[in-house]
């Protein structure tokens, strides 16, 4: 496995991987999901979703730290047996292939709708997928470097837009905090949808074995979650405060609309939405890069191949076909919400199962078992 040879990822790089994976195309639609689930209680729903996501990420990290030099594919086979684990891995691969394709499709839709109106959506989608496939060929240390390098290009525009938009905010719009006529069932569903936006963080299972000090992995997970949560919460809070909950529900990508209402001081650029969207390509790319690499690496380990480079290329047509399956934007969002919630069972449940079984069987991995 390539990851074993490069045990160079630092805590900061691991956090960067997680942050830039968590912040992606989902942020564009996030306030709509939140407002649909809890109207003025959107921030609360987001907070709930983030707590669920944090629990999931903590589980993945903890089970990873228990087997610090192996990935979930390898220790899964040791913990619950060869074939059950293979089924689990296969499901994970399918799920992340679908997640990758839907992310690419979603962003392809965003681009086609807002900047390149005459370009077919297939083109914008496949371009993003090709970028992810080409990049995924690189090794684990380049993977970590790339996320660290792009982090400022994600955080600065992300927080920048939100902070600039705050001067248009009417804070009465987000009251009452609990939402108007809160509906527990829809709030719970919304929280799950938002938690599902954070599933890219599952990539941590491949980052931990490549870390220099795997025992500090939990620290980087928590830090990453704190930073990403801050952006998620501020985005939802500001968007609902600016537009109001009912208007937010009607906007397809409320965060993009938020960028439209803001202006940079200094009168250099007249509108920010196109620029924001373009800068956001980086954020989407890093998320795609993570999930694509995750799929390719899991597939490589499952198939027992030595190298994942060819798999990155072979995966491309399948992922593209999945991306083109939804007929229109409505079907796509229904698929994203539905698949996300199903996926939670997999990305939280499978590590939880492994952790419980491993604790019961008193199994754990050596730090330098195969060094």
């Amino acid at each position, binding site marked *: 496995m390539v990851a074993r040879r490069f045990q*160079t990822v*630092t805590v*900061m*790089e691991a956090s960067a991987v997680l942050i830039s994976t968590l912040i992606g195309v989902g942020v564009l639609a996030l306030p709509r999901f939140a407002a649909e689930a809890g109207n003025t209680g959107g921030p609360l729903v987001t907070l709930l979703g983030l707590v669920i996501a944090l629990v999931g990420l903590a589980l993945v990290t903890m089970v990873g730290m228990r087997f610090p030099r192996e990935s979930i594919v390898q220790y899964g086979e040791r913990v619950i047996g060869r074939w059950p684990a293979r089924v689990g891995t296969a499901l994970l691969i399918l799920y992340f292939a679908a997640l990758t394709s839907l992310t690419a499709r979603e962003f392809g839709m965003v*681009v086609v709708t807002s*900047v*390149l109106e005459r*370009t077919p959506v297939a083109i*914008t989608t496949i*371009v993003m997928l090709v*970028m992810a496939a*080409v*990049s995924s060929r*690189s*090794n684990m*240390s*380049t993977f*970590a*470097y*790339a996320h*660290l*390098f*792009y982090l400022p290009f994600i955080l600065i525009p992300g927080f920048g837009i939100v902070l600039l938009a705050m001067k248009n905010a009417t804070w009465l719009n987000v009251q009452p905090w609990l939402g108007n006529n809160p509906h527990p069932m829809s709030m719970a569903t919304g929280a799950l949808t938002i938690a599902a936006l954070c599933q890219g963080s599952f990539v941590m299972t491949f980052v931990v074995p490549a870390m220099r000090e795997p025992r500090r992995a939990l620290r980087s997970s928590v830090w990453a979650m704190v930073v990403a949560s801050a952006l998620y919460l501020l985005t939802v809070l500001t968007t609902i405060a600016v537009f109001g909950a009912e208007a937010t529900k009607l906007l397809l990508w409320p965060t993009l609309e938020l960028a439209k209402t803001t202006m940079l001081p200094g*009168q*250099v*650029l*007249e*509108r920010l939405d*196109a*620029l924001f969207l*373009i*800068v956001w*390509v*980086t954020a989407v*790319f890093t998320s795609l890069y993570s999930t694509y690499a995750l799929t390719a690496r899991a597939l490589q380990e499952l198939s027992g191949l030595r190298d994942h480079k060819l798999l990155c290329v072979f995966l491309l047509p399948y992922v593209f076909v999945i991306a083109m399956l939804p007929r229109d934007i409505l079907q796509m969002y229904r698929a994203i919400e539905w698949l996300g919630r199903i996926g939670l069972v997999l990305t939280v449940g499978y590590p939880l199962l492994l952790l419980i079984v491993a604790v019961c069987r008193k199994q754990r991995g050596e730090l330098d078992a195969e060094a």
Partner: protein
Amino acid sequence: MTIWQRLTRFTARSNPNPLPPDQVLAQHQDDSYSGDIHATVSFFQHLFGVNGDWVIRHIRVFGRYEAVLLYFSNLVNRALVSESLMQALLRPPEHVGTGKLAKPDLRRVLMEETVYYGEVYSDNRLMRLAEALFRGDTVLLVDGLPEGIVISTRDVEHRSITQPMTEQSIRGARDGFVELLATNIALLRYRLQTPNLRVKLQTLGQLTKTKVAVCYIEGVTNPALLQEVEDRLAAINIDGIIDAGTIEQFIEDNHWSPFPQVQNSERPDKCMAQLLEGRVVILTDGTPFALIVPAVFSQFYQTMDDYAERPLMGSLIRLVRIVALIFSLVFPALYVSVISFNPELIPTMFAVAVAGGRAGVPFPAVIEVLIMEVSMEVLREATLRLPQQVGGALSIVGVLVIGQAAVAAGFASPITVVVVALTTIGSFATPAYNAAIALRILRFLLTILAGIWGLYGVMLGLILISHHMLSLRSFGVPYLSPLVPGDWEGIKDTFMRAPLWWMPKRPRQLKPVNPERLGRETMNVFLQQPSHTLDPVRPRKLE
């Protein structure tokens, strides 16, 4: 003799494929000089006799011993050979007397008491003697003495040390490397007068036998790095090393990347600074360019001026250069995408002005920019290759055609000319020519992407480029270090140039043996209040 015999002898003599001399020598690799000068001279004469500058000079050493001097007349210092060497050999030293000397004594007298040249040694293998001849040494064979005496008499015409042409500096040393390896090593040694400076010589190239010097500082440079450099050099088996570039292309990590992964420099002071940071410098005989490994991207926009000036000035100048670098990469692409896809981004008044300027231009913006960029590149290349006498005329014509006439003819809009000009000037501000070329090539890629997908395409291109840079390694050092992976000590010397006393450590990515470059106390001394020696009210008194 019958006709038949004559014919067969003729064909036998004119062997159509005689072996080249180096293969003949290789056949006689283990043969040694026996002391029989006639056999040896005829052997050498057979091999080298074709050459016009091949000299066999029969002499009588001390008037008694039959001997022969062999050399190539254009490689040696002829005045020295005929005056100092010949005179010394012909007249016996006074204490020798008139009696016959025993063989070992003769050798000792010759080597230790007669020849007064810097380097003299004896060797008896014919192959070694032949190699010495081609290096420019003179070989003395004495009849009966079973060893050849090699005297280094090499003298090759060379250019004197001049200011480096490719790397100008305002403030800093004015000397640059020349073609001769010995001079270049001298320039380095003169700047680094420490026994720790090691210069390892090796010969590369089957036919050129080029001398290559690997220079490093013992106790600073990581031994593993040195080993890797030597391994990569040793793996080169080629007929000739034409230039340092030949070596560069064999030792670099990624052969298809547009980015240079080995730095080259004409400046001894730069090489010295890099040696002090823990890098390895490779000097090649016959080229004025030293190779410096490993190289990271930030090195290609740093200059010696940054360090010679005070930190604030150095940092500002460096920032200007970084801006120029980014300009030269993205400016035309941004222009094309804003004009063709997102005119709403720029203020309305300006957008109207741009549209007015473009009114008569028949092409889309991307074609217009590409045409202008290509003609600019042609102009640049032509100015570079032209004899200097016509260079001035060309630049005037070029400026007229590209600047004034293109706009007047409705071929390009004035703003395009401004954009192209700014881009070109920006790329000239990058001190390393090869890095500037890389960015110039990528600029075309970005412009085309901008023409297809606007800002979205530019962003995709930038991500691809940065991802490629992130995956590059030079001798294992990540190309974008010290920025990624982050190293605070190193970042002080990337965008800014921190004060020297603030950078007490050598760059960590080079893993130097001794990371400290500043004495412990120096920093404390510099941070103290300066003593007001000549204070107008209360001057300090000497005790």
